[in-house]
């Protein structure tokens, strides 16, 4: 075979060519720095969104990041205080906490020139609620009258396509009728699911999904799915919160460790999720350019109340005892490098005291006290079967480390090596599977990231009887009544105090053990400044300045 020789030479030549260009790449951030005139483009780490990018279909942080830049809703949460301020809403009026009249500011448009009207909201909400559109956040519209017709709970045929509780009454006004009293309803409207949608969304859905069009300070310049989304400042944006930079390139990273490495090498401007392994070095690597601020996230341990062993009399003592056996302070300091704060209630510090956060509401039950813990557990009849197994998903989020630490802490308190063990579940989907099918036999990891900064959001979806995220199926008539009363209360301080009373009911029964509040952590390059994380632990992109 004479050709073989030629082939070999060809291979060698290719290799030589490759070697010649070796190490030729690199060092090129790819962005043209635009000086301090607000035209510079920054790059930020991103993850591949799990769902199509529709407002009512996006329920995770990565997709949420884009929606936050692309859309503005009726309300917007203050980046510092978390307070819901009017954005597109001129006013939202009610006299009975059940019927609301919304007036939309005039003069707003989508980036394709179409005006944002009352209809843009009503159409978007109807779309989000309708069962046939498979929107994963449909339950957000569950308070609106007629939801059961457009989204029958049993999955049967829907008898209406639009919510009967929504009525367009003018170009810029519409009314909302809720199916129950809900005084803080207007404050929920800052959530992305309530964003308005342009006609293009309904006319040509497939094209819109390829390159979504919104009404926020940024527009999408190009979107290569799975690799990079280039967002650019929208010059004609009518809002006050115009982008202070020329745009943001969201780059998908296969691993947040790589993103951090890229930041260190100067190829990336912003990492909004410092990997756990790097937390130790972040402070010395980045100095002032490392942010570690509270976010509206709380980690808890939930219990399977559908399991007789965990629901019998006296078990509240065992649950409280377990809570006391956990050395939260030590775990948050050693494992999480202070990016978590020991929890002393079931909400989050981002709510602020006025919003319902009450430090120390949990009291002794959340204080580490091994001696008392041991006694409480013994008083309550001991651990069911002599052992607790804490279930967690092992695929993401490095949960193994803290679950092992919690177990260690419990074992030390009880003086028994086998009192607590971790029970890893292979994938998140399987973990959720076991939870939804009520198959848990012991406590399991539960995390809650708030949808909107309201105390209601930390309590009702999680602990109200049969609520959407009440995974442990904890139930208490007293708690439910207090929540109903709080929702009907129009006076906000009173409503909050009722919610706190409900929280005390939860504490006395230890319906779930609060572990710690989670912080958002981010690091950035010296090219950019004025970086902050909002209470949802998302960077406030429009305020970032590129030098």
């Amino acid at each position, binding site marked *: 075979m004479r050709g073989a020789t030629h082939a070999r030479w060809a291979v060698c030549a290719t*290799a030589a060519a490759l070697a010649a260009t070796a190490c030729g790449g690199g*060092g090129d951030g790819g962005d043209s720095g635009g000086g301090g005139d607000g035209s510079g483009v920054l790059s930020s780490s991103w993850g591949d969104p799990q769902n199509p990018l529709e407002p009512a279909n996006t329920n995770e942080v990565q997709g949420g990041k884009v929606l936050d830049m692309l859309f503005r809703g009726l309300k917007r949460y203050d980046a510092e205080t978390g307070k819901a301020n009017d954005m597109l809403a001129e006013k939202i009026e009610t006299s009975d906490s059940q019927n609301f009249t919304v007036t939309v500011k005039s003069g707003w448009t989508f980036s394709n020139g179409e005006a944002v009207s009352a209809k843009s909201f009503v159409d978007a909400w109807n779309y989000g609620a309708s069962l046939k559109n*498979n929107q994963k956040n*449909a339950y957000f519209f569950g308070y609106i009258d007629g939801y059961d017709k457009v989204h029958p*709970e049993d999955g049967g045929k829907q008898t209406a396509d639009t919510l009967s509780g929504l009525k367009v009454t003018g170009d810029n006004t519409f009314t909302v009728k809720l199916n129950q009293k809900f005084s803080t309803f207007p404050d929920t409207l800052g959530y992305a699911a309530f964003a308005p949608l342009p006609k293009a969304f309904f006319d040509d859905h497939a094209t819109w999904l390829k390159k979504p069009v919104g009404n926020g300070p940024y527009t999408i310049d190009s979107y290569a799915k799975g690799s990079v989304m280039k967002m650019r400042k929208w010059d004609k944006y009518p809002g006050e919160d115009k982008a202070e930079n020329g745009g943001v390139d969201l780059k998908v990273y296969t691993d947040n460790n*790589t993103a951090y490495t890229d930041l260190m*090498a100067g190829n990336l401007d912003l990492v909004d999720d410092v990997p756990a392994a790097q937390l130790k070095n972040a402070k010395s690597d980045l100095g002032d350019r490392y942010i570690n601020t509270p976010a509206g996230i709380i980690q808890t341990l939930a219990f399977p109340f559908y399991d007789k062993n965990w629901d019998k009399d006296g078990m509240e003592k065992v649950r409280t005892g377990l809570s006391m056996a956990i050395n939260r302070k030590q775990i948050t300091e050693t494992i999480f490098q202070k990016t978590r704060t020991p929890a002393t209630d079931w909400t989050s510090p981002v709510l602020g005291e006025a919003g319902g956060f009450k430090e120390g509401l949990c009291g002794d039950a959340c204080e580490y006290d091994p001696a008392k813990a041991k006694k409480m557990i013994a008083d309550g009849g001991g651990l069911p079967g002599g052992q607790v197994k804490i279930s967690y998903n092992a695929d993401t989020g490095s949960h193994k480390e803290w679950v092992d630490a919690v177990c260690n802490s419990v074992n030390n308190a009880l003086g028994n090596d086998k009192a607590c063990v971790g029970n890893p579940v292979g994938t998140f989907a399987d*973990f959720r599977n076991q*939870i939804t099918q009520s198959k848990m036999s012991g406590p399991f990891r539960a995390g809650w990231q708030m949808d909107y900064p309201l105390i209601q959001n930390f309590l009702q979806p999680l602990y109200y009887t049969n609520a959407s995220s009440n995974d442990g199926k904890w139930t208490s008539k007293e708690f439910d009544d207090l929540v109903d009363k709080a929702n009907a209360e129009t006076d906000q301080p009173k409503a909050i105090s009722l919610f706190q009373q409900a929280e005390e009911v939860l504490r006395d029964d230890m319906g779930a053990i609060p572990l710690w509040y989670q912080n958002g952590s981010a690091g950035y390059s010296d090219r950019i400044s004025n970086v902050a994380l909002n209470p949802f632990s998302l960077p406030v992109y429009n305020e970032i300045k590129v030098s």
Partner: protein
Amino acid sequence: MGRYVIRRLLQMIPVFIGATLLIFLMVNVMGDPIAGLCGDRQCDPATATQLRKEFGLDKPVWQQYATYMGNVFTGDFGTAFNGQEVTELMSTAFPVTIRLTVVAIVFEVVIGIALGVITGLRRGRPVDTGVLLITLVVISVPTFVTGLLLQLLLGVKWGWISPSVSSDAPFDELIVPGLVLASVSLAYVTRLTRTSIAENRRADYVRTAVAKGLPRRRVITRHLLRNSLIPVVTFIGTDIGALMGGAIVTERIFNIHGVGFQLYQGILRQNTQTVVGFVTVLVLVFLVANLLVDLLYAVLDPRIRYA
């Protein structure tokens, strides 16, 4: 030879069906993927049912498999959970991985065989011992250690390369990742070539060639190397498939959005369509690579004939 190729191609059909069925069943026993789609909260039951119907998850497994295979033959690999066609994912992932694999294979062939020949001819000399030691180290150090170390040194400390590969993943950015990916196989190729060369050096035909007075170069390349390459070619052939599907560690470290990354995402999200689709293509790559290797035998050693 033609009949042999046809027979081999026909044999691929049962292998192909068996492999995809196995993958299909394996992904299925992992449970209901819809449960993981709504994050840390439960999808409301009506939406979950609706989604199950949309992805065909409400049907019995055999029916899902039948529908899936039916669609595959028309070129429809289904839709991933984020609304993207799996074929679209493939069209972005495979070119990147193929480039990475090409770089890795070139390293294996060029460096691996060259080192193998040098050491095989100088058995027991310091060069041989040195290379043997180095390959031993390369084989025993896990890829992620080499990868992270090179990334840290070349990318961050010295700034010679970019620590991450951009989304276009051009050849020049893939050199270091390709070297990392190739490193272990490269060591094996070196050792295989060395042994084979050392063994054949004393063969009759080499002695004859030398006795004929052929130049040393010609003896080595045409007579010795060609005959020694059969085990090496076998190894490299199977390695093509392994590199394409098994690059997950390297791809994660260097931020390469290739097949490994898509497979990993697919498994995490329990996305049957993505996983089965990608594995189906990988199975094909394996089968074709094996066929090519078998055909190459005849080129290297004409005594091997196919009935």
